[in-house]
């Protein structure tokens, strides 16, 4: 299987010498194509930092990171933006939908940055909303939707440019357990369709839904587990 994520010796240091905080202390981590991996760890473990680096939102202090076969460490801001746009789909705990843009425009947004025409964007966005089961809400504002529906919109948006990797950061954290379970069902379905998923959580019961668990503790991978 080709690998989607391969990191070696990733470190991240915040602050200057005297008061430096070592958030990551050397992470070697691999995710194969089509895997559903849960990244688990208590708060302060460094999992958010790792997630930011894997999502190309932040750059590591040292170490190498290859995404979908291409090294991304040391790239410029503009190049990282292009990678986020084309290769990564984000799902956040707080949905992060644009509150004043309609649902369909929220889903269109990544395609706008990819340079698709208005017509292509609209068609594809509607198809994606159909896929996550809320096509009827296309013209509503996010505020008119329930939490579970908002997270479905976020998933549709994450899938917009057919990314190599779906990165979900506590995607059920703001949902009640029933809607949380529905969203997790959606993730499992995406996994079965062949998407590569990396789910970040502090909740072991949610992590248990994944194919493989990786635990982070004090900036290091504590319990690497082979594919289940």
């Amino acid at each position, binding site marked *: 299987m080709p690998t989607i994520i391969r990191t070696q010796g990733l470190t991240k240091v915040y602050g200057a010498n005297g008061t430096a905080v070592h958030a990551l202390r050397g992470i070697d981590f691999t995710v194969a194509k089509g895997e559903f991996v849960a990244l688990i760890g208590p708060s302060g473990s460094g999992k958010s930092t790792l997630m*930011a680096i894997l*999502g190309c*939102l*932040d750059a590591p202090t040292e170490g190498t990171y290859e995404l979908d076969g291409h090294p991304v460490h040391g790239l410029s*801001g*503009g190049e990282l*933006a*292009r990678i*986020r*746009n*084309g290769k990564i789909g*984000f799902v*956040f705990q707080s949905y*992060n*939908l*644009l509150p*004043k*843009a309609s649902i369909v*425009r929220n889903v269109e*947004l*990544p395609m*706008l*940055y*990819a*340079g698709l*025409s*208005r017509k292509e964007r609209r068609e594809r966005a509607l198809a994606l909303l159909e896929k996550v089961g809320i096509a009827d809400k296309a013209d509503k504002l996010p505020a008119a939707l329930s939490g579970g529906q908002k997270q479905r919109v976020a998933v549709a*948006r994450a899938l917009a*440019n057919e990314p190599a990797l779906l990165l979900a950061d506590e995607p059920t954290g703001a949902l009640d357990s029933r809607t949380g379970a529905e969203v997790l069902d959606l993730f499992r379905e995406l996994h079965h369709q062949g998407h590569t998923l990396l789910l970040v959580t502090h909740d072991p019961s949610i992590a248990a839904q994944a194919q493989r668990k990786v635990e982070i503790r004090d900036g290091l991978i504590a319990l690497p587990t082979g594919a289940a």
Partner: protein
Amino acid sequence: MTTSGAFRERLLEAWTEIRENLGRASLQALGVLLGVASVLGGFSISDSQRQRAEQLYVRLGGLDKLNIQPKAAVRDGQPTALQQANLGLRDEDAADGGTLRPEAIQGVSSQKNARTRVVSATADQDRPVTGIGGDYIPANGYAVEAGRGFSASELEAGAPVTILGTEAAATFFPTGSPLGQILRIGEVPVTVIGTFQERVFRFREDQNNIFRWRNRIIAVPANLVQRRMNGDAYRRVDRITFRIPDLKVMAGFSKQLQGLVKANHRLQDDFRLDDVQARIRRQNSQGDVYDLVFLLSGVLALVGGGIVNVNIQMASLKERVREVGVKMALGASGREIFKSFMTEALLLTALGGLAGLVLGVGFSWIIAHSLGIPLAMTPAAFLWAYALAAAFGFLFALYPAWKASRLSPMEALRYE
């Protein structure tokens, strides 16, 4: 995608963003709107006032007149023999002056005044009488309304004929037509051969007619005054007027004339010429001062609007930080964010500017109307107002756009 297609896309996107954030966008456009309106309003009020002032000069007979008047050469003490022998300002000065620049001079007129008793069947008053020569009537903005003007032979011979202003006609001949009636001026019975059109000029509608005194005129041939009322052996006159439309020629002519008349007058400074240089300076500077004042206040309004704009943008930037973070996470580069901020601001500037032009026209109309002067607006005023708004819109959009584009996606996403 072609470049123009991308630009169109960007504009559409900016328009969508504006519609989605209408409150914020209208506040942003308001600064530009008020700035443009005040620049345009200022310019058009300045233009209107200037047009009104120019109308006044034209009605007065224009800025194109150069007057020579006699002046006492001796203030106190005994005049010297030379001074006593001097001839004073007279018709020959007018004739000689007329030969200096015949191609540029459009008219020469002279004036010889008297103050005397004027009697008709119904009125008996002490009045100034204006003895006129040359083309005094058109040069001073008069026009004959009823009857006729003086013929060349009447002017030459000093015939006992008169033309009256409306006030004079109404005073001396309150009933019936004054034409053909006899008016006694001093000891001379003169025939009324015409009346002048009423002269009216109000700077503002509710003000007095500043030409009222011109309707009091009792005009007779200068030679009549000279020969039968207030004359002397040297045929002195009270004023000589040269009409020269070209101000630049007039400046040179004025110097030549000064020398010529002084030579004629045995080197005595017993005459006074209008200060042409001062007139040119005044004409050039008056409008400029107005323009500068209004331009300045307009620019201040735009700067104020711009600062308000930056503040709104910075305040909304806080509201927008997360939005920018989300967009960056979805693949917008800093460049992209910068461009979209700029496009949005420029679109708002363009729209706010247009609305400002409309409001400015309204402003100007109201002010001109309340001042009671006719509204004058020039294309230059519109261009200035819009160009300034565009420039300021661009300048004041730069900082917030740059600030937004420099956000780190991670920090922007976590921003609370």
